[in-house]
């Protein structure tokens, strides 16, 4: 592991001020999520980095469940199940609505050795039985999604239904609270599933990367990714289905309905007028489950719905594919080329190694290819399908609260923490039962209004990439594997020249282009992206795929070569630089920049 004397510094988490007008942001989050005075001495000495990969925007109070539950699950599997020798779990703190994380290392050599024994046994079992365990995992995940989809939120009527009076149906009080507890329980289970395979999957891949770099020190990261990446990737299926539907629209001569600028509803209503159009719509309907469970964003915020909730992205994509087909262009993903290139790279690199290294290379490549489907598929099943469905279930509770005046709008439910929602439901059920006057309708709406205003103001604040101490070395496998946060990268952040005209990151997809930057800080700004621009964002989601046909390069704040932006850019043969730490804060929309996806550098040209 490389080490170097740390140079530069990060601000103390206690010295980062509150932006004007944002006072009171702390009320949105649990007491333990803050940099408090009681833990100051320890917390100031730790290295904390902004997890802009998962939480690029200020957290709404309810959405913070995706921090708590996720880190609970990560810690459980890493620390309490597999006992990863040098690392326990990940702690988080919140500054001005943004999430900073820090690993908990194990430092006692005795303890590390003891954990190593458990790890070898437990992780070894998983690797040995991977296909079987992963098969069971998929079944379990699909059952969980089915349970979630079947979950109903009971309504409150003037009188309890006959089944309560004459049958043995439980009362609404119990049914509503049960449903709410259930919805939380299902999320707990999903996050546990999410992390069951994650570390081991990435671990095999990162080990292969390290082996490649030992014997082939200059190998570009993207070549390693290309050798491992799957061909039949679940995440590419939705767009593949759209391409098929685009061809169908042309073959059945209903393509005239797809005019750029039309809304999904306008296109659908024109299609519904003809028989062929209705046939096409029926085909679309058949594709929707499951392929429209793609999220419009990276899934960890309630406002990232699915393509079912907002069909703008798939329809824009369909219109684009149809226009391309009409222009005689090839729209198929070059699967043959990807497959040939993947095998050619593996064969050529393998041939350069001596026999001993060759064996490790071949075995680890095979292991990486075995575990990789999980790495790619959990995203679709957990982050997209489950979460987009799950947010909608919570909207049903929001609707219940708003129906009874506790909220002005059902969507406001996400402005309360999960415990506050529980409390509001408690009071609603109490006063509904007693017929008394609830305080909720007077109590919650002003809180919601204040929080919405706060979140809007906090969104304009740019968090520093890291706070606290500059670490000598990053040794935590999870930080390295999942966030691409390496010693080198952290030291580069600490030394960052704020006025520099150049930003370094990880080279993720080769090529050099110059163009105009478009800084996108949230999914709602995606619609502003113009043809030929360079996308600059915190992190992208595969659900953004359709806009990759518009842009000529991508730059992200966080992520490694296996981040989604990197994968998609390689698919579309666009240059990409990821993990820059500060691209969105240093690049302006409209600025001319040069992206060198081979060198991993972004040059500001004006």
């Amino acid at each position, binding site marked *: 592991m490389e080490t170097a004397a740390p140079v530069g510094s990060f601000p103390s988490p206690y010295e980062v001020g509150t932006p004007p007008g944002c006072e009171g942001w702390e009320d949105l989050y649990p007491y333990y999520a803050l940099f408090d005075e009681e833990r100051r001495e320890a917390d100031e000495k730790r290295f904390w980095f902004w997890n802009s990969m998962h939480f690029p925007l200020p957290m709404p109070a309810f959405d913070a469940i995706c921090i708590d539950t996720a880190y609970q699950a990560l810690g459980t599997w890493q620390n309490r199940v597999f006992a990863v020798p040098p690392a326990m779990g990940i702690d988080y703190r919140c500054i001005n609505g943004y999430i900073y994380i820090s690993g908990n290392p194990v430092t006692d050599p*005795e303890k590390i050795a003891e954990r190593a024994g458990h790890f070898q046994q437990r*992780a070894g079992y998983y*690797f040995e039985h991977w296909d079987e365990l992963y098969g069971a995992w998929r079944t379990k995940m699909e059952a969980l999604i089915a349970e979630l989809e079947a979950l109903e939120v009971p309504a409150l009527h003037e009188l309890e239904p006959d089944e309560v009076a004459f049958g043995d149906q439980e009362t609404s009080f119990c049914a509503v609270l049960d449903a709410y507890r259930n919805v939380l329980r299902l999320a707990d289970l999903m996050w546990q599933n999410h992390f069951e395979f994650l570390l081991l999957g990435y671990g095999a891949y990162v*080990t292969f990367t390290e082996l490649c770099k030992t014997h082939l020190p200059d190998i570009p990261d993207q070549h390693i990714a290309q050798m491992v990446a799957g061909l039949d990737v679940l995440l590419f299926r939705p767009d593949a289905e759209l391409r098929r539907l685009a061809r169908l629209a042309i073959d059945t001569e209903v393509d005239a309905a797809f005019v750029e600028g039309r809304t999904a509803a306008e296109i659908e209503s024109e299609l519904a007028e003809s028989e062929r159009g209705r046939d096409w719509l029926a085909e679309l309907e058949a594709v929707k489950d499951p392929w429209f469970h793609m999220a419009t964003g990276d899934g960890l915020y309630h406002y990232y719905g699915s393509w079912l909730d907002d069909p703008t992205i798939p329809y824009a994509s369909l219109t684009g594919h149809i226009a391309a087909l009409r222009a005689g262009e090839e729209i198929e993903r070059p699967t043959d080329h990807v497959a040939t290139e993947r095998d050619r790279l593996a064969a050529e690199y393998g041939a*350069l*190694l001596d026999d*001993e290294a060759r064996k490790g290379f071949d075995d680890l490549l095979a292991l990486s290819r075995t575990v990789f489907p999980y790495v790619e598929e959990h995203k679709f099943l957990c982050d997209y399908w489950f979460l987009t469905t799950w947010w909608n279930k919570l909207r049903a509770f929001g609707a219940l609260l708003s129906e009874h005046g506790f909220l002005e709008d059902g969507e406001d439910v996400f402005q309360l923490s999960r415990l506050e929602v529980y409390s509001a439901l408690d009071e609603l059920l109490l006063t509904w039962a007693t017929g008394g006057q609830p305080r909720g309708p007077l109590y919650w709406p002003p809180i919601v209004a204040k929080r919405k205003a706060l979140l809007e103001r906090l969104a304009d604040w740019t968090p520093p990439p890291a706070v606290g101490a500059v670490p000598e070395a990053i040794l935590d496998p999870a930080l390295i594997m999942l966030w691409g946060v390496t010693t080198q990268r952290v030291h580069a952040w600490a030394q960052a020249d704020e006025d520099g005209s150049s930003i370094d990151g990880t080279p993720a997809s080769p090529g050099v282009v110059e163009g105009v930057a478009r800084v996108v800080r949230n999914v709602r700004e995606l619609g502003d992206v113009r043809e030929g621009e360079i996308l600059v964002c915190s992190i992208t989601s595969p659900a953004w795929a359709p806009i990759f046909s518009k842009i000529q390069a991508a730059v992200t704040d966080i992520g490694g070569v296996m981040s989604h932006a990197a994968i998609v850019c390689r698919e579309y043969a666009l240059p990409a630089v990821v993990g820059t730490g500060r691209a969105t804060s240093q690049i302006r929309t409209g600025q001319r920049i040069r992206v060198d996806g*081979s060198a991993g550098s972004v040059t500001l040209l004006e």
Partner: protein
Amino acid sequence: MSASPHTRPLAALGRGDSPAFGGKSATLGELIAAEIPVAPGFALSTTAFHAFVREAGLDGKIARELALVSPGDVDSVVSASHAIGEAMRSAPVPEAVRAEIAAAYGALADEAGIAEPPVAVRSSALGEDGEDATYAGQLESYLWVRGAGHVCDAVRDCWVSLFGPPAIAYRAHVGQDEPAMGVAVQLMVDAEVSGVLFTCNPMSGDPSMVAVNASWGLGLAVVGGEVTPDDFLVSKVTGEVVRERVHDKDVEYVPDAAGRGAVRAEVPEERRGLACLDRTALEALVEVGRRVERAFGSHQDVEWAIARGRELPEGLVVLQARPVTGLPGRHPPSGNDTAMGLVMSMFGAADAKG
């Protein structure tokens, strides 16, 4: 005995000729056999050197002077070098050797279609290729030599360089005596760009990379370290340029306007900061590098030049190849290099307790 005992066309040489013709000439012969583009030429055997020393009666003089050298005493080295050089320069090249050089040069002239074509006259040290590398920079080469008489003089100057102070000191250090050398004479390549390539990254040892250093003009500037060359790292596997560092290249060696010899010239301002290789040139270099590596079965350090006004890849010529020495060591196997063993160490679980 053949009609020309002292010379042979480069194309007729192979590895086995190294003891007689020196490493450089033998290597050039092998490159030609592997169909790697090399400027045509001929090689002079060590027999020519021995004939020269014998006929001029220099054996005794050389032995006496060398006997006075004590390793580490710079003055004794310089004084021996000076005395031997003086004696060699005033001795004639034997008539038989002169005639053979003239005939071989004439054949080159016919091949080039020029009456007195410019040639490079290059020392070809004895012994294995590795030794040639050790001698690097000590033995002389003479560029842009024209006319058989001047070629003979340049050949003698090469022989003299075998007794340059560094070469004497080196041999005294390793305890070697009775030196001899061959000489290679090749048609001159009017290099627009030249440099060195390694068939691996010599810094990291990465075998999947070709490392290229290049500058304007003849190779002297790069080999002699007189400019900071443009520096490229190119993937053998995909041809991607992984690293590109373009530097200001302020001097270059070009043919003297008088028609003989090479001169050091300032590079015009507007050309200094330009990359001297484009993608097409790098592609051709990687291809040639891979072929040289294949031909020799090990990593090679290749000197090359791109001829002025010629199309690629035909314009690319290999001047010399030798094995890469001093690569970073291979990582020793840890004894637990199974895939699972490596995954375990990634998680810090290599040394389990109990």
